[in-house]
């Protein structure tokens, strides 16, 4: 049986705001409509739906609104915000196996006006379960665990807060080119970053992602069918997920474990990537991802960023070219997937030249995708 190659044929998103004034279901549906319009497909043609386990809009509710004839494949991946690429891997597998033909991946969230991740409201355990051993001491939000890891890794590698700051500054410059970005009109200097207050030290204000209301969606189908649709297909060259490794050291990110599988699947390596979107819930983890995916050696991510290495115009590896979670919107990896597709299409507002391989990480190693233009 010939292998079915899979492609992204449509992308869509809503406006990004602090108060959408709409339900999360509405946000998802508006994003899906935009993605279907982009693809030139109609609601009833969708036969697969996938989303984040933290999303509040069940697949059946989406299907009902789209007028789906027969929902053959649906499901969620139960981790947190970091499952975007894993959903792409799962949806691709379903299409390859013939379980569905047109799969939509969606996310709609009032992350600022509704339940806020930064409050610990979504992820906190209120002292229950494993929370009994961390929360009474003030480990209250995802930021606390990540700041703890980052501080140890700074100690081990010599990476500095100023280097983290250059992630934020570079991404802001990218956002300044992107009219959709929350911080399109606001510039950021390294001095402002270094003078910004600590939230959970060592993380400063501008190391932290936004909280955003909005929605995003992408449409996947077979590469063969994609070639007859409206947009030039963007091929999924590799997609993989990761959750746990028994021999993981404290400061290892998941990327260290995902990377060898991802590169093997693609038949490509870090030096083949032309542009990268990396899950920047917190700026320091962009540095750690660059190291653990093998773009640079451990300890060299900070110097790379500091020397302009992740800027869209002339950097060794342009990163988060839409402004990312820090400056575009915090759509939990969805906006990074969309930007990864745009880079492969050649339609980014910070477009890198001649993109053959567009890398997207959606959780510092919990999942990654490599997009590329149709090779035919």
């Amino acid at each position, binding site marked *: 049986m010939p292998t079915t190659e899979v492609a992204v044929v449509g992308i869509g998103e809503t406006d990004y705001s602090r108060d959408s004034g709409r339900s999360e279901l509405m946000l998802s549906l508006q994003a899906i409509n935009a993605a279907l319009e982009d693809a030139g497909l109609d609601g009833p043609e969708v036969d697969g739906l996938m989303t984040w386990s933290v999303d509040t809009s069940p697949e059946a509710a989406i299907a009902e609104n789209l007028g789906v004839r027969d929902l053959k494949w649906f499901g969620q991946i139960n981790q947190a915000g970091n499952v975007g690429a894993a959903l792409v891997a799962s949806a691709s597998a379903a299409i390859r196996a013939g379980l569905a033909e047109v799969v939509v991946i969606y996310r709609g969230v009032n992350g600022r006006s509704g339940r806020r991740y930064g409050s610990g409201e979504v992820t906190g355990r209120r002292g229950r379960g494993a929370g009994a051993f961390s*929360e009474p001491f003030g480990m209250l939000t995802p930021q606390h665990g990540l700041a703890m890891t980052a501080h140890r890794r700074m100690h081990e590698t010599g990476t500095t807060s100023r280097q983290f700051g250059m992630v934020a500054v570079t991404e802001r410059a990218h956002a300044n080119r992107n009219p959709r970005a929350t911080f399109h009109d606001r510039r950021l200097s390294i001095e402002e970053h270094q003078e910004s207050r600590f939230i959970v030290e060592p993380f400063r204000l501008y190391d932290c992602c936004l909280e955003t209301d909005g929605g995003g969606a992408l449409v996947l189908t077979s590469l063969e069918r994609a070639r007859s649709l409206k947009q030039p297909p963007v091929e999924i060259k590799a997609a993989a997920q990761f959750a746990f490794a028994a021999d993981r050291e404290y400061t290892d990110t998941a990327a260290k474990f995902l990377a060898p599988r991802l590169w093997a699947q693609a038949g490509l390596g870090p030096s083949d990537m032309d542009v990268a979107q990396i899950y920047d819930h917190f700026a320091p983890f962009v540095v750690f991802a660059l190291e653990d995916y093998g773009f640079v050696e451990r300890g060299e991510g900070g110097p790379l960023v500091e020397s302009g290495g992740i800027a869209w115009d002339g950097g060794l590896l342009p990163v988060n070219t839409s402004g990312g979670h820090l400056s575009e919107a915090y759509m939990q990896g969805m906006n990074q997937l969309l930007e990864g597709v745009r880079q492969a299409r050649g339609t980014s507002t910070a477009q890198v030249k001649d993109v053959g391989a567009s890398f997207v990480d959606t959780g510092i190693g919990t999942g990654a995708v490599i997009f590329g233009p149709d090779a035919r």
Partner: protein
Amino acid sequence: MTTSNDAPSPDAAAPIEPNILGDRLLPVPEPEHAPYWDALRAGELRIQRCTSCDTLRHSPQPMCPRCRGSEYEWALMSGRGEVYSYVVTHQATNAAFRDKTPFATVLIQLEEGPRMASNLVDVSPEDIEIGLPVEVVFHPVTDEITLPLFRRNTSN
């Protein structure tokens, strides 16, 4: 279970830094973790240990990751360790911590191996360093709950 007289007694509790006292977010113990909390109340730090392969693990889990054994005991720790990493919360959204900022949360590496989150009772956030030697003190919060906190260990 092993016994030892090495662990500091409840009487050894040092003065508590004001920032981290008061209306703490209280743990809600799971039934199978009762021995951990009972030991703390009695002034002992006991960590889950697999009876098949002696692997220590924290936080407690139903199964040993090394040998898949489901039998375990609660091994007495010396209470000594060092600061492995730490964070300082400057902006807290949780009501239990909002008026206590800035406060530090430390990750303690126990000398027996496991790591645990805690607070230091006698070191202000700006004086904490990775590698700082510490020892456990027992901080009763309610009749039921005593938390393991740490203080500077100046004995060596």
